[in-house]
């Protein structure tokens, strides 16, 4: 089984330096692209490969690029931004790639920047990823020294400056337009869309924002072709995916598996199944902002469309497992407290609605809940629906709540009836 993204990463060793990375074929993709391909050919290759964005939304990467005007005269300057602000609860896949193989990301960024003819690129990095920052800066210095970044890369006349921006640390910066505001030094609130960043992004110029895992694919697709990429997955969407599992399982962790691996295989074969004495109650498939799935969904293949069909989202593909020894109300309260704290405060439903949800959940968990509180929670899940709010933050927060109410309704009711949390003695 091929593991292109993680093949050179291991816990025991430090990441490959430039020399070793080149020994295993690194920057061959960069050479090929800069010397042999036109930007349009690169974009078309990525389009044909059907690489879907790995940040969570699954938008076709090639299509995103093709929205950028290639009329250099009019659109200059242009920017490429790598979204490395990984703050989704339960998610640590980008960190693995950043710390484990920084050159793979840099190479991907050179290819993407070349495809849209950007001359400046930024890595917007989560503030807490200190090790990743050290490794990235080291690798970037190596790349500059080797003429792989900067002016006239590899003598091709193509210029690219790459900078790391370590963020101040807000969840909303993962939203690509809030990220751009933050990068410009403005308040981290999402922007009005349209226009999308491809039309008006960083500093009002055409910009592409791609996730770390997405960019990491590019050198491999360039070297091996789109058919190879498509062949890696078990479903129509190409490639492998970094899947993770956290919670009360025997072997929590992260694995690169073919896209379309089932939940059951991931949990039972790779994560080793539930810890002894713990039963499975449900899971959040792609971070805290996705709907719960339960036992009946375990045989679903993990792909963007299939998970959506089950009523959730694949998101980041890193599972959080809810076990039967954990109170679902307390679990949800923890999640909603996070979302209420991380609201940017720009639009009313999110700013005022999420703290209300959080307070109601705390009240129910503390044994002071009333049945009317459940009506308020149900009402909030409708009120916080997509389109009602300015961005996807509150609708994301509403997803675990509305599915939690659906699947664990009896648990809520028993809190109210018993006037205490049944999991607490």
């Amino acid at each position, binding site marked *: 089984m091929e593991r292109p993204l993680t093949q050179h990463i291991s816990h025991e060793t430090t990441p490959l330096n430039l020399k070793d990375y080149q020994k295993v074929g690194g920057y061959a993709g960069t050479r090929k692209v800069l010397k042999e391909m036109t930007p349009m050919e690169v974009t078309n290759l990525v389009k044909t490969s059907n690489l879907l964005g790995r940040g969570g939304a699954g938008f076709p990467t090639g299509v995103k690029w093709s929205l950028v005007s290639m009329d250099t005269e009019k659109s200059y300057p242009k920017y490429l931004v790598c979204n490395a602000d990984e703050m989704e609860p339960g998610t640590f896949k980008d960190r693995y790639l950043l710390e484990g193989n920084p050159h793979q990301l840099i190479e991907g960024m050179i290819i993407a920047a070349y495809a849209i003819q950007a001359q400046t690129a930024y890595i917007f990095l989560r503030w807490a990823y200190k090790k990743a920052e050290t490794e990235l800066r080291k690798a970037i210095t190596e790349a500059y020294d080797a003429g792989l970044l900067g002016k006239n890369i590899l003598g091709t006349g193509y210029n690219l400056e790459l900078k790391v921006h370590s963020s101040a640390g*807000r969840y909303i910066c993962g939203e690509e337009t809030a990220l751009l505001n933050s990068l410009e030094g403005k*308040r*981290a609130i999402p*922007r*009005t869309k*349209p*226009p999308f960043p491809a*039309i*008006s992004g960083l*500093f*009002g110029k055409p910009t592409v924002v791609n996730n770390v895992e997405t960019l990491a694919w590019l050198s491999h697709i360039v070297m091996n072709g789109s058919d190879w990429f498509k062949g890696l997955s078990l479903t129509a969407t190409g490639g492998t995916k970094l899947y993770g599992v956290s919670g009360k399982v025997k072997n929590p962790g992260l694995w690169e598996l073919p896209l379309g691996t089932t939940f059951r295989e991931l949990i039972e074969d790779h994560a080793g199944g539930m810890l002894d004495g713990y039963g499975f109650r449900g899971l959040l498939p792609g971070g805290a902002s996705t709907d719960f799935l339960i036992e009946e969904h375990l045989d679903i293949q993990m792909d963007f469309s299939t998970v959506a069909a089950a009523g959730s989202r694949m998101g980041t593909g890193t599972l959080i497992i809810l076990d039967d020894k954990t109170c679902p109300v307390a679990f949800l309260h923890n999640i909603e407290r996070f979302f*209420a*704290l*991380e*609201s*940017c*405060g*720009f*639009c*009313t*439903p999110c*700013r*005022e*609605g*999420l*703290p*209300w949800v959080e*307070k109601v959940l705390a009240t129910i968990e503390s044994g002071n809940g009333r049945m*009317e509180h459940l009506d*308020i929670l149900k*009402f909030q899940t409708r*009120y916080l*629906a997509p*389109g*009602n*709010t*300015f961005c996807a933050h509150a609708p994301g927060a509403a997803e675990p709540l509305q599915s939690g109410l659906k699947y664990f309704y009896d648990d809520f009711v028993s809190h109210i009836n018993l006037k205490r949390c049944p999991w607490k003695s």
Partner: protein
Amino acid sequence: MSLEIMIKIKIDGTYYEVEPNKNLLDTCLTLGLDIPHFCFHAALGSVGACRLCAVKKFKDETDKKGRIVMSCMEPVVDNLIISIDDIDAKAFRAAVIEGLMTNHPHDCPVCDEGGECHLQDMTVMTGHNYRRFDFKKRTYQNQNLGPFIQHEMNRCIQCYRCVRFYRDYAGGKDLNAFASRNNIYFGRVEDGTLENEFSGNLVEVCPTGVFTDKTLMKHYTRKWDLSNAPSVCVHCSVGCNTIASERYDSLRRIMSRYNGEVNGYFLCDRGRFGYEFVNDEKRIREPQIRSNKNEKKENVDDEHLFSVLSNSFSTNRKVIGIGSPRASLESNYALQVLVGKDNFNKGISTKEQQLTNTILEFLKQSGIKTPSLKQIEKADAILILGEDLVNTAPMMALAVREATRNLGKEMAEKRGIPSWNADPVIKITQDSKSPVFIATPFKDSLDELAKDTFRSSFTNIAELGFAVASVLDSEAPSVKLKNIEHQALAEKIASTLRKAKNPLIISGVHSGDENVIKAACNIATALKSIENKGLLSIVLPECNSMGLAFLPGNPLDILFGGKDKIDTLVILENDLFRRASEESILQLFDRCDQIIVLDQLPNKTTLRADIVIPAATFAESEGTLVNNEGRAQRYYKTIVNKDQVKESWRWLTEFILIKKGTQTVQWKKFDDIVNSLLVDFPDLEALKNYFSDADFRMVNEKIPRQPIRYSGRTSINAKNAVSEIGIEPDIDSPLAFTMEGSKENAPASLVPFYWSPGWNSVQAVNKYLDEPNGKMKGGDSGIRLIEPKENTPVTYFQKNNQSKELQPGEWLIVPVYQIFGSDELSSSASTLAQRIPAPFVYLNLKDAIDLKVNNTDQIQLEIANTKLELVVIIENSIGQGMAGVSVNLPGMLYLDLPGTGKFHK
């Protein structure tokens, strides 16, 4: 409506023909439909923050489900189908209010916004009424934001309008949004006075009671208890429209009165907070007379007054009348009739008169148009020559700010983003601005907008202007600057103006330098001659400087130095000590047998008068003012005159009637004077189109000054009678001192307040407009008296070479005007007075070192036999050898500037 092709949209089953390129909320408000909203403001555009304006949008006729969209963010396209009444949309809007109410205090009874609160209106409109949130409310610490604005953050609903107005629109720096989530804070980094000159607009922009008028708080009155009149600001030459509001004979506040051509929705802080002089306890309320020059004046009644005056104006006496640029056209005219044309003096210096006349003649003859503020906002390249707009015409500075955003709007439109979509426009614009060039002696807050600034003396600024004209048109007086960089700048300015679609030259008389004005006129002439485009706007000193220019008369200086006696000197609302040296005025006064002064507040002139007549302020009278654009606008009485206070024109009419030997006029009321004025001055003929007639009626009724809920009026006397009793008659205007009368929309110039069912806040103004940010229904108020002539010959001004060599030890002194302090009447407003600096001088650091002075040190300036103490302010933008001296601040003597002076430590 514009010439654009109209499109058809369907709202709740009804088809409407509407303009494209607008957002849906704006369109619905234009149609008169009610959609609740907070964050949208027509002058600020849409951002989609509050989510209150939700409506249901349907894909097509078969779509029954639809989806909720925010109407402020929805472009209007052909065949759009929406529903405002949709049950989901309604429930969602109520839910937005419910969310906001989770933290909003229920303190309406003690909140200054209560009764005119947009949040109250929207809460009622959405139908939210039952509280389900059973947790604690969030609370904040408030800040002391200075003397004008009260801060009460607990009431905040986070609509972001305040920062969008203050920062994005008005260019303020010291108010911001802090923190995040449900803990957002709108305020300053620390307590302190809001620095921006337009901070008072926060009172109207804020939809609830976070920012309220601190001056109103001192004598607080609910909106429904205020009696109002349409008024015009008297504190600069721009003539912003205001609503003046009264209760119990005192003026309670000034709010913006919408005029699409002039001030739009906004006012500057001088205009809003300068009103308190009306209520000043020092006001002259009774006639005062002294029997000889050594006695103290005593209050007298009318009978006594008229017995004393019975001889004053008789034809065998030499009677001189001095008018005023801060008095109405009618008062000046009545004075002129009293004393005769030959004896009418305008009460302004020769220099000011020459400058003003030059401008008026130029605008009448040159064929060049002088723009309204609205037209200034549309300019795409601006040259400001020698005028510190922020301090001399603040609202024009705000219009220039708006104009600089035109480039960004154009850039956005090229990428398919309509200009109402505020956030993307700002992001696309970044730092791009329509070009503005500023040539002034020292920095001002508009500098940050400037493509280039030119810092020098007014002589050199005029030179630059002449050079620009010379580059544009070889027929213009040939001027080439010796300094290569300066010549390059002149060429850059010329080519920028030439390339622009809508170039604008702004100058003003505050420089006191005729060459600056002439240079500005020449540039406008050159642009017109070569490119057939270009506008010219000239800032004048006072609220009726332009009106006074229409009346013939002598300048003040002509009275100085003479020997012959003057029997009676009548001075109309004019403190002469602000306009000439003490020496020359005292000399003049010595020649007068009897000095009669009509004024509102005591000053040096009233102090030396033999007879002081209590004149009404703008709030207690009708009158016409002509602004710098040549727009005649009328203000109406809001306070019924008490004691012996009367309109100056009414006093003067009474004086005419007692003038022995003649019986020239039959004036009974205001309209009679206006009609007589129009006969005498055909230039003002256009004024007769004003809806001024006291006989004008809306459906047979007068227009009420009071809102329908005006309380107390009937209840005070309810034990005797429930009907209104004792309504003060008003023979001078079509307005009535009552709450009863026509509820129809009155003509714009006669709208005393904004109210519409369900809209108690200032947002009701949209019901009076043809479209948000558009025109008042039936047209904006004011009559333009000067329109450009066609086919005018091209004539250029020659430069007047009057430059004087500086002697060793001499400094070139240039005037520094202050928004707070340089205007006479507003300086007597007790709150605004707290913002007035001590008399100061700007010095370059190097010069300060030479003079051995530091910041805040005192220094003495000797200028034209006058010595004054000034506080040093180091200001490096002012050139070496030059000093900027504050003008007309309280306590300062008159200075003829620019001039030369010497400093003594």
